[in-house]
């Protein structure tokens, strides 16, 4: 008696085609690796659509470690309507993101809802792109723009656009001065910590910041001598 070796199939459908679209999207949203997402969207038309749909549900997207450029990053972020956390930090292939990419990203719907953004080490960007993006990122709480060439201009933009900012990493931002930091601390009243390693700013400046906001944490700890603010 011959048993069906292959799984039973409906007339038109293969087994997994019976899965409704939103279940497929749910499954794809659980894939964490971009390679998996890429393979999945190459399987068939329905899956390609499913991956796009699942992008809309993702709350986190990280390109860190991938050789992305302006277009590939933007293409994905534009579909990620639910995004809350975006990481475009530098990969070992160097920085591929430019101001043009930041400009394109600024048009994505999710930017105004982002709570966390990292542009760490993206040496190809300047104030121009950052200001464009930041002026739309009004819900940002955690920002990492360490290892970039931004200046006070970007900090003024952050001060003006990000009232909910809680933490900021300015690691190695050697072009940022006291003026930018003062504007930041004065306007971002919810700011809790600044990572200021490698910045060209004096201890006096930090004392000034702590006078405005005594609870402010200057990271990394131990970088400053013991400062008591009464």
């Amino acid at each position, binding site marked *: 008696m011959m048993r069906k070796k292959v799984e039973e199939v409906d007339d038109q459908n*293969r087994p*997994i085609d019976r899965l409704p679209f939103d*279940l497929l999207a749910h*499954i794809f949203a659980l894939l964490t690796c971009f390679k*998996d997402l890429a*393979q999945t*969207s*190459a399987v068939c038309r329905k899956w390609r659509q499913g991956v796009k749909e699942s992008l809309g549900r993702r709350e986190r997207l990280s390109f860190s470690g*991938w050789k992305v*450029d302006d277009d590939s990053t933007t293409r994905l972020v534009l579909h990620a309507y639910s995004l809350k956390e975006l990481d475009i930090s530098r990969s070992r292939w160097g920085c591929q993101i430019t101001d043009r990419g930041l400009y394109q990203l600024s048009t994505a719907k999710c930017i105004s809802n982002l709570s966390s953004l990292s542009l760490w080490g993206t040496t190809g960007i300047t104030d121009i792109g950052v200001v464009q993006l930041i002026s739309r990122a009004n819900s940002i709480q955690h920002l990492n723009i360490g290892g970039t060439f931004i200046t006070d201009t970007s900090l003024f933009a952050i001060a003006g656009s990000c009232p909910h900012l809680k933490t900021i990493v300015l690691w190695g931002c050697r072009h940022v001065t006291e003026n930018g930091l003062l504007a930041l601390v004065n306007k971002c009243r919810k700011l809790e910590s600044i990572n200021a390693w490698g910045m060209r700013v004096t201890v006096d400046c930090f004392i000034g910041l702590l006078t405005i906001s005594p609870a402010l944490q200057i990271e990394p700890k131990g970088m400053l001598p013991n400062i008591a603010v009464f």
Partner: protein
Amino acid sequence: MASSSKTEQKKMLILKSSEEEEFEIEESIAVQSGTIKNMVEDDFTLIPLPNVDTETLIKIIKYMKKHGEKTKSNEKDIEEFDKEFVKKSFTELKELVLAANYLHITSLIDLLCQAFADRIKNKSVKAIREIFGIPNDFTPEEEAEVYEQHKWAHEEGKEHIDHSAY
């Protein structure tokens, strides 16, 4: 007419599969299913489930019973159960996720979707198609376009992708 839920005896429900087989289950356990919960609120005690076959229903009841006993102390035990629970053939998993979706059992839907995602991870396109029995319906032009768009995702890691389906 319906007995008060405050009585000593636990309120029982009857679940009926698509093949008309009936299974008794405590209401407190069955309401892990949002669909069943709604029907109970409308005073149903016999719940017909025309979308769920007997085999699948038995597994679902087993899941709900196990998760109905959840306490702070048996979390590890339930984790082990879940791990074993998804060690099933692809067809079984498919039937289960469809049923869980229909019955609206959130924790089970999540568990099963994760199991599917785990089976897709690290597989080549060919392997995925083979495992899930999906034909390639792209035209050559479309396929080239897809690869072009995701070229960057293929440049990380090894040159040769795993094509075996295991």
